[in-house]
């Protein structure tokens, strides 16, 4: 038991994700069936309106944030990506464990709201003013804002970890043109998560401040904007759809070659299409706002991008179908689920294309037609590959085969049930049935369709039960699978089932994107094993490689099990729970405890047997991903500032003085100048001049601390002149500057911690830390520059 709580092994963490997300899937499924039972007939009273509101909100949140994302990235990604790229583990194993425990705690947090009768109840998108204090005075929305912020933390950490793992931990030879398509898909989804989640986080922070501290981000009377919520939410929300679906593409691109014994047609185009879908997905957010009355000159940008995001999706559909038609397809259960996925994806995609027409969207918005469309995509297209993937990799994870006939029965039940459940929603939506209503009157022609949908829901449930019953029975009684029952194309099929703790006995040889089909390379591996070559057997070692062409870069020592991830997650749980309870001082105690857990986490350094060959360490790329997420956060805040400024005739409004310019600009110059001694400190450390490095670091720290003290003093002076509750101008002014100052404070803590560590001498770990912290300060300088110039702009 203790081993599971403190594990940092990617396979165990993948399994923990799998079981936890199944629990949430069950909860979300029960909520869906309760709603379908309520809507089966007109004027039904199984559920009241209050309960119904909570159920459809929690159902949406659960299925998106606590089932599909963690099932694909958390379970499939964690278990499979290191195996597919020939790695020992993820790049940051303890962070990996932390992201799981935060994810699990955030789910418990959300459902605690349901248990306390205060579950989120304003829809998964929580539009304001519905979600504002005036219309939702309970603590329901706090469970939403804090629960999602908590969950976003886990997803961001996971995404950063995947990016660094895929860039830095590939087996030698796995250059970018040889990365399995599954990994491309997860890379795209991870970039999407990393850059989209900050927008949601900013939105959640604004709403929390509006509701709890009297800020005015979303109230037009005080300079705010209700549409601001939608812009920020959908800037996250639409890439989110692709984040859900792209891992499904990845699963499809693994199953199709295995069951047709043919490499994917147009490999480079499919790989790039996976990246393009997510990238263009960042330019379509306002197509969720076509009914808001925005100017058409604005909306055409989104209509254009929406129409073209179809192209990379179409490339993939064409490649999947062509590979199946030109290969030797064996329609076993995994491939059946993928065929079902393609059908659902095309159907849902076609109804999606219809929304490009702005007048059509305005007719069907908020009807069941929209519900039908996104369930075809999110259940039909995103979840079907998950079922297919469960069947496909079941033998690898358990070492046993599932029963094929029962598998096929489960497919047909789920396929038929899903169509029966969601297809009539198109019709009833065109007939005018609105979404989010807990009941409806008879005589409108809606009842028969609703009844069919409910029957479809229970047929789907039967199929899902057959699926899990089959897998559970097979786990105990299934025939032995052997290492490679499907003649699979990727590296995980080259090792025993289930995989050993160390994954690969030798660092694998790779010369194509389908390395398990390269018999020559596998024979080379066997010979190297017999000759004791290419083995990483000095503890828990990992080979790092260069980012683009995967040349060997260094051999690093990885952490074993650690108690600190779960301890830190517990501290964060306490922090978030106490924020809901409005016990801010006790919450601060948990924040401090979390900080201490972080110090303990990093206190003991791993025994150094690091062999540097070339290239930068993974830690630097890790810092790069963190900075990218922070830059996105600042971009959203700066965007908010100008969005609100466009709407307000007076900025700052009457009664609030213009910002002072001179002192902040001088201070800014001081902060930027401190980047120089930071860089010099790293250079000195690299040359082995420890005393000089410490001195320069101390000098930079003194300057930065002085900057921080002066800025805090100015901030307090401003608070005496006008309150954050005065106007939306004041709210964004204090939040933007406060965020910049918080980043400086974190930098001070990091530099101080490093200074203490350097007192004990210079190690490679400390050198990497110094390099990463120097980069952090450079980024903080740039971000603070942008934030400061933004808030000073009315006076410039």
């Amino acid at each position, binding site marked *: 038991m203790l081993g599971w709580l403190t594990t940092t092994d990617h396979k165990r963490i993948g399994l923990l994700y799998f079981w936890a997300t199944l629990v949430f899937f069950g909860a979300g499924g029960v909520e869906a069936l309760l709603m379908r039972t309520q809507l089966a007939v007109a004027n039904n009273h199984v559920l009241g309106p209050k309960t119904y509101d909570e159920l459809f909100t929690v159902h949406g949140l659960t299925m998106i944030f606590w089932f599909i994302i963690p099932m694909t990235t958390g379970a499939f990604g964690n278990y499979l990506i290191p195996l597919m790229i020939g790695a020992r583990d993820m790049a940051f194993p303890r962070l990996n464990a932390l992201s799981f425990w935060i994810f699990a705690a955030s789910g418990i947090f959300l459902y605690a709201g349901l248990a306390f009768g205060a579950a989120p109840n304003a829809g998964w998108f929580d539009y304001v003013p519905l979600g504002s204090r005036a219309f939702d005075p309970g603590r329901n929305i706090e469970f939403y804002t804090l629960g999602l912020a908590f969950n976003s933390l886990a997803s961001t950490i996971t995404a950063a970890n995947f990016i660094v793992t895929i860039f830095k931990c590939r087996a030698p030879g796995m*250059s*970018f*043109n*040889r990365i399995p398509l599954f990994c491309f898909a997860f890379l795209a989804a991870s970039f999407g998560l990393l850059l989209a989640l900050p927008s949601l986080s900013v939105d959640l922070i604004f709403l929390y401040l509006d509701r709890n501290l009297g800020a005015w981000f979303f109230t037009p009377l005080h300079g705010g904007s209700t549409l601001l919520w939608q812009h920020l939410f959908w800037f996250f929300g639409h890439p989110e759809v692709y984040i859900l679906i792209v891992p499904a593409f990845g699963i499809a691109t693994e199953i199709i070659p295995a069951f047709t014994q043919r490499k994917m047609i147009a*490999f*480079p*185009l499919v*790989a*790039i*299409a996976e*990246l*393009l879908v997510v*990238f*263009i997905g*960042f*330019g379509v957010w*306002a197509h969720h706002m*076509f009914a*808001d*009355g*925005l*100017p*058409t*000159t*604005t*909306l*055409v*940008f989104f*209509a*254009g*991008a929406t*129409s*073209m995001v179809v*192209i*990379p999706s179409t*490339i993939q559909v064409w490649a999947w179908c062509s590979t199946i038609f030109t290969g030797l397809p064996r329609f076993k259960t995994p491939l059946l689920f993928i065929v079902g996925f393609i059908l659902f994806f095309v159907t849902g995609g076609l109804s999606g294309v219809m929304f490009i027409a*702005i007048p059509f969207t*305005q007719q069907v918005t908020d009807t069941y037609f929209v519900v039908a469309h996104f369930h075809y995509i999110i259940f039909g297209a995103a979840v079907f590959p998950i079922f297919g993937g469960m069947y496909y990799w079941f033998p690898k994870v358990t070492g046993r085969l599932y029963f094929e006939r029962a598998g096929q029965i489960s497919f047909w039940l789920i396929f038929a049930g899903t169509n029966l459940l969601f297809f009539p929603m198109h019709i009833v939506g065109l007939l005018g049935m609105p979404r989010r209503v807990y009941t409806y009157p008879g005589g409108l022609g809606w009842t028969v369709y609703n009844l069919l949908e409910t029957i479809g829901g229970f047929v789907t449930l039967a199929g899902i039960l057959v699926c899990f019953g089959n897998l559970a029975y097979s786990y105990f009684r299934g025939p032995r699978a052997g290492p490679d029952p499907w003649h699979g194309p990727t590296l995980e099929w080259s090792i025993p089932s289930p995989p050993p703790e160390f994954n690969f006995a030798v660092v694998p040889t790779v*010369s*194509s*994107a389908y390395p398990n089909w390269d018999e020559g390379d596998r024979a080379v591996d066997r010979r190297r094993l017999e000759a004791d070559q290419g083995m990483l057997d000095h503890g828990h070692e990992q080979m790092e490689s260069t980012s*683009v*062409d*995967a040349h060997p870069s260094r051999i690093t020592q990885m952490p074993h099990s650690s108690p600190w991830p779960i301890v830190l997650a517990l501290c964060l749980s306490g922090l978030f729970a106490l924020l809901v309870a409005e016990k801010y001082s006790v919450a601060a105690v948990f924040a401090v405890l979390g900080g201490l857990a972080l110090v303990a986490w990093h206190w003991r350094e791993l025994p150094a047997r690091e062999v540097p060959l070339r290239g930068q360490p993974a830690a630097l790329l890790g810092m790069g991903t963190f900075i990218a997420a922070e830059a996105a956060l600042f971009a959203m805040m700066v965007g908010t500032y*100008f*969005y609100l*400024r*466009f*709407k*307000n*005739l*007076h*900025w700052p409004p009457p009664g609030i003085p213009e910002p002072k310019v001179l002192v902040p600009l001088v201070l800014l110059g001081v902060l930027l100048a401190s980047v120089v001694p930071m860089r010099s400190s790293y250079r000195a450390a690299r040359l082995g001049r420890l005393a000089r490095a410490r001195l320069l670091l101390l000098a930079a720290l003194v300057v930065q601390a002085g900057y921080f003290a002066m800025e805090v003093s100015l901030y307090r002076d401003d608070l005496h002149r006008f309150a954050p509750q005065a106007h939306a101008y004041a709210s964004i002014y204090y939040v933007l500057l406060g965020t910049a100052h918080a980043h400086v404070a974190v930098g001070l803590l990091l530099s101080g911690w490093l200074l203490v560590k350097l007192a004990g001498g210079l190690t490679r770990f400390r050198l990497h830390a110094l390099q990463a912290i120097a980069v952090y300060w450079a980024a903080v300088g740039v971000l603070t520059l942008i934030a400061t110039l933004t808030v000073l702009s009315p006076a410039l």
Partner: protein
Amino acid sequence: MTIRRLELLQWFGFLAGGTIWFTAFILGVGTSEAACNPASGRWGIPYDTVQIVLLVLAALVVACAEIAAVLVYRSTSGTEEEGAPPRARMRFFAAGAMAGNLVFFTIIVLTGVATVSDRLCHQA
């Protein structure tokens, strides 16, 4: 062409199209919002001029990126798709960039022409 030069062309071809599209997209949307909101609407933003400049500039950069991708693709002809880097990797990125840049070019032209020809601030 040297490997070093091909490498630069490969990254330009792969990254420039997407970068310029997203930049022009954000600036275009921002200008539209600025032109049509009550406060910033009084600033007298030359909307059509800004959009035409963005359209032309972005289209030119994407066209250059497409040319770079084609050059790399042609220079690496005869290289196996899954061959050893750097040539096979360059060909891989060039193939993707050729498709991606066409998509970006189409979006830029579609939206640029539509937003200039549409009546400014006409509510949807």
